[in-house]
């Protein structure tokens, strides 16, 4: 259900293409890793939902887009729920690791509601987390599976951060 791999330096890439540099938590566009220009960036359609949910629950996020900028969304009209890429900085994981648990719980609670009226075996969620480790290396954790599997994700994030 989880796959961990290497990821590019998020802060360096943000600087290179002229985006805000995320300091704590951020929602990254789907093609953040490969986009050459800011204009190419595209967010998952679930990004505004996660932003609204976090805002309602007092979870702060650093949008990588500047206030006057707007990144378009991609909607693939899929049955499964494909979440945005969540970036979690080393600083946040060192100082306030529980915030990540809360942020994931907020998403997980929403998905429990979202998937109501769909047969249980069809309820699938995809979520990608980018973790900045203690040694400032960036790792990608990809999750794909049932919503209740998100419960363990916070622990996996902390484990990767401590690597």
């Amino acid at each position, binding site marked *: 259900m989880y796959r961990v791999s290497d990821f590019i330096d998020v802060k360096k890439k943000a600087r290179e293409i002229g985006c805000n540099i995320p300091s704590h938590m951020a929602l990254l566009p789907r093609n953040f890793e490969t986009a050459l220009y800011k204009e190419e960036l*595209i967010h998952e*359609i679930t*990004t*505004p*939902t996660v*932003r*609204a*949910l976090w*805002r*309602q629950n007092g979870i702060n996020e650093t949008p990588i887009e500047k206030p006057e900028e707007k990144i*378009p*969304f*991609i*909607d*693939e*009209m*899929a*049955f*499964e729920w494909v979440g945005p890429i969540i970036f979690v900085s080393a600083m946040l994981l060192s100082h306030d690791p529980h915030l990540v648990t809360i942020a994931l719980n907020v998403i997980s609670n*929403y998905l429990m*509601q*979202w998937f*109501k*009226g*769909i*047969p249980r075996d*069809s309820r699938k969620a995809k979520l990608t987390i980018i973790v900045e480790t203690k040694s400032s290396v960036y790792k990608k954790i990809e999750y794909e599976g049932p919503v209740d599997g998100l419960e363990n994700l916070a622990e996996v994030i902390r484990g990767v951060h401590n690597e």
Partner: protein
Amino acid sequence: MNKEVDSFLKEFKEVIRECGKFCFISRGKEFQIEAITKLTKLKQEAASLKERMIRFMDEESANAMLSLESLINAMINELEMWIALKEDNPNKAFDSLINAQSAVRTSAQAHCIAIDLNAEGYTNKLHLLEKLLFPLQIFFSPGLALEKVECSICGKEYGECDHVAGKAYMGRMCYKIIREVKEIKEISIVEEPANKHARVLQFIDEEGTKRDWMTWRRIKKDE
């Protein structure tokens, strides 16, 4: 919950139990038509009571009424599916089944009353019917780059307000309204799309004959 809603719930259970008897292919079409008429009347009552709850600003009751209204809608669509199958119209039957599945989903999302009324069991039944009654469908799923998406509740840019898709607010479901498409990125063939109405209707077989995917019947050139 509001007393009027409680009282409606009793009537709802009675009518659903009565009409549920006809949700089988073997039942007489005339009874199924009669059941649809009864359910349509009940649905109007539900909609009217929901509006009253909205006027009273009773969100809990308004959402419960939306849930009941959607369950009634699901059963109407299921009955329409059985009738369409008997009338040798499987394409219409399939669309009615998909409408029934969507209506149960709305009901389950709108209020927990649906869970007490076994919406989960009904969901499973409707999805099982899809597999048992119809050949495997080929669905399309477009990948769209969107510039502007609006909230169905307040009309603001989706994400800028506090409403979230799939949640009920004062008797209305929140969903995203696509206002501006920047680009069609791709169109994929998928097994499980969000919209099951987007499916293959016709195909050309190995002999070059154009056929209806659902009935396998030959399609004349001008159709």
